[in-house]
């Protein structure tokens, strides 16, 4: 049994490194000449996609061995769900790749998937038993379909991002360059979060606090990174650890806020460092990589990904969700924050489709919309799970 779990995590690690290797191969492919719209793939590109597919197969192996070890589909906690989401981005990339044969897409899609999988591993990764609310076949059906939809929509974000990196004039500083840098900063912050969390985990940092929780009761909390902000009426129990600089009121979860603060500070440091060393905007650094791909094709890929992903997302995140909610929670809809944000995501992409169809929002506008849409998806994945306390756990 636990043997299988071991095989499973090895496969996950393997896929992680295979994706890294594939990224490098795709990087090599665009350095070669002759990859314009309509021309075939060169050898690097072919190798890149082969390695990607092997990596994807390894991750599927992780998924099913873990399923066998746990006895339920491994989409039941944040680690498992986020990992699966990363896998779906790779899967969606492979799908779109076989339609459009564009190596540049891989150069961006794989790093995003890698960051997401690394982010996933910051959460407790042991196999957990299912609480009663999750004991249903609908867990697998609803969550995998929803994540697949989000993964495909993720490709539209990646196409949009490439479009913006390519087409936004970097010779002057404008509102657009600033917004694009904001997106880059966000990605850098996630990387910073991963580095900081991994660093303190390696150093085995632990600081325990007694505090008074929202219900006014005494409670206990362990920080795994130094507490910049501490819990309500908290007192540090572990000796020799940092005292918080500020104390939060009871309704704010100090531990989560602290993590966000660390990520932002880390993000700023990392971002400023990049800017100082290269003397360029991050988007300007990336721009040379994407010169050869046709903007028209990017626009088409972005739209196509929304067209393919939107029905899948609707089916998984709304329709299957409603069926399950009717069974597990007695009602198909209850305005729980997670539900509401799935609806908001849906409505956003509805607006996207209608804007494109009737207002002719193609090209750059469409690319911005795709970026915002993915922002909403990530918000639902990260913020709604971590910050807004919802129903998505029973009892």
């Amino acid at each position, binding site marked *: *049994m636990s043997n299988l*779990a071991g095989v499973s995590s090895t496969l996950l690690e393997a896929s992680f490194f295979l994706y890294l290797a594939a990224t490098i191969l795709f990087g090599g492919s665009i350095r070669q000449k002759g990859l314009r719209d309509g021309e075939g793939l060169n050898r690097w590109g072919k190798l890149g996609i082969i390695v990607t597919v092997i990596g994807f197969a390894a991750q599927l192996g992780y998924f099913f061995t873990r399923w066998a070890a746990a006895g339920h589909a491994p989409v039941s906690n944040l680690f498992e769900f986020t990992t699966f989401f990363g896998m779906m981005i790779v899967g969606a990339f492979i799908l779109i790749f076989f339609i459009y044969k564009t190596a540049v897409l891989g150069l961006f899609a794989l790093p995003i998937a890698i960051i997401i999988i690394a982010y996933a591993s910051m959460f407790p990764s042991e196999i957990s038993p299912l*609480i009663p609310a999750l004991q249903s076949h609908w867990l697998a059906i609803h969550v995998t379909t929803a994540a697949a939809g989000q993964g495909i929509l993720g490709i539209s974000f990646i196409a949009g991002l490439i479009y913006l990196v390519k087409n936004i004039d970097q010779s002057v500083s404008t509102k657009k360059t600033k917004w694009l840098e904001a997106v880059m900063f966000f990605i850098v912050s996630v990387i910073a979060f991963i580095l900081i969390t991994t660093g303190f985990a390696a150093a085995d940092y632990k600081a325990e606090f007694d505090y008074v929780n929202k219900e006014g009761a005494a409670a206990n909390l362990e920080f795994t990174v130094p507490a910049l902000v501490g819990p309500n009426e908290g007192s540090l129990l572990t000796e020799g650890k940092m005292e918080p600089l500020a104390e939060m009121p009871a309704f704010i979860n100090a531990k989560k806020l602290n993590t966000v603060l660390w990520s932002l500070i880390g993000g700023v440091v990392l971002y400023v460092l990049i800017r100082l060393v290269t003397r360029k905007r991050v988007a300007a650094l990336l721009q040379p990589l994407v010169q050869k791909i046709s903007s028209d094709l990017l626009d088409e890929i972005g739209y196509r990904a929304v*067209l*393919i992903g939107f029905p899948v997302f609707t089916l998984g995140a709304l329709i299957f969700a409603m069926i399950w909610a009717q069974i*597990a929670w007695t009602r198909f809809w209850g305005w729980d924050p997670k539900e*509401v944000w799935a609806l908001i995501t849906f409505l956003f992409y509805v607006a996207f489709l209608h804007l494109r169809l009737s207002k002719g929002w193609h090209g750059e506008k469409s690319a911005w919309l795709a970026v915002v849409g993915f922002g909403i998806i990530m918000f639902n994945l990260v913020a709604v799970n971590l910050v807004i306390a919802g129903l998505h756990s029973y009892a």
Partner: protein
Amino acid sequence: MGKVKCECGHVNPNGTILCESCGRALTEEARQEKLVDMRYEGSARRSQTYNKTIIDKVWNFFSSVKVGIWIIVLLLVAASFGTILPQEFYIPSNMPAETYYEDVYGTFGKLYYMIGFHDLYNSVWFSALIAALGVSLVIASLDRVIPLYRALKNQRVDRHESFMKKQRLFAEQSGTLNASELENVKAELIKKRYKVRMENGALLAEKNRFTRWGPYVNHVGLIIFLLGALLRSVPGMYIDELLWIREGETLQVPGTDGTYYVKNNGFTLENYEEGEDPEVFDEAINRVGTVAKNYQTDAVLYRDENNELPGAKPELTEVQSDAIQVNQPMKFDSFAIYQTSFRQDEMKAMHFALTNKATGEEYGEITVDLFDQQKSYELGNGYKVELLGYYPDFDGFTEAGEPTSKSPLPNNPAFLFNMVTPETPEGEVSFAQIRNTMEPLGETVYKMAFKSLDTRDVSALTIRKDLTLPILAIGGIIFMIGVVQGSYWNHRRLWIREKNGQVYVAGHTNKNWHGLKREIHAVLKETSIPEPEDRQKE
């Protein structure tokens, strides 16, 4: 209503922009344009034609996609506001909303409550937005689908060259069409599943026209869904009741007009245990502590055969018995009973012993059922205990020294006993609680000593009937069919014709131009027919 007759002889409805049959531009504006707007084939839409009466104006307002998008965006933004703080139905039910938001979230919470965001999704304006969405869906769809249907049905094979020239994919070359070559092209196109029509030496290849109806199908599904949601407020369509039922109790199932009764044969709460459950879970169980595995009420459902007879005593016959678990509701008729919540170890009965304070000798034990007390308890040999007062949720004494009860729930039961013994035939008064006895009326010889407590669990079951579900399901299915129909195919057309020594080729698709270009390239690459070029490329 006027009609517009085109040079080609076809009679078009008033307001048509491009002749339904040959495609000639019928308005001055359309004649000027470099590329025609093909979204609705230049058909006559009511909203583009009439703008006089109030009805016209309302129609035009709601048929505008711009307005539709505004409604969608407003809904989206509004919905997000409702997630900033928990909605009223998620706050603890024992705290009034008026004070809860301010107490927990300070001034911001107070403001949130005052604006009404604590119950946003039931607010009038939110409902109005949804209603506007529904109206807009209906009108916008009607405005387009009928003219579009007409235009696609009436289209001719040999379109006017002015129409072809204004297509996004277009090529023109002097020369003539080679009949056998055209036949080959036709065969290739048929292989690619085009429907090909040839007339007067012109060719029209078309495929997947059905995908154009996708948006309308999905809008219809959505409308059905919204109507279904509206039906919920019709009496009898929807029942949502909560039933707290103690172990051993048999209660009427609310919402069934007394037809059904349910008995709780026991509530079970199981947690995952190391050693018992698969080893892979050990690590998680160790980290989190307890993880719940099962909440279950063993329930029996009865029907009251005498329900129709007024005044008759219920006569219960068993209908079914079932273990109700989360995710496994008990179903009967159109009802479902769900395991929703529970309370463990509610007090059921208390045991006291009549005890001589000095010697500690006991003269018998009484059991007081908290839900069914006796007036007096005989202990034999001249010993007896009378119950003078029962305070289920004891809350202290009034100024006059009267014990008070906060609620009828046995949360903190207390009793006033009168102890009658051969020694004290007048009786002595003892005030007894769990682990505590008092003597409110003065020193006594005997006391009622607390011995033990019986408890039992209480299940909360939700009784639900929702007759709107089939309608919602139909709406949902139609919606999904429409979305897939509109998204996973595209409507492609290719026109080839020769006129006055010129060959014209034009292509159109409603989306995915790359796909169409690739397909046309494959068909025309080995022929003398020019491949149309994309004139919208940067």
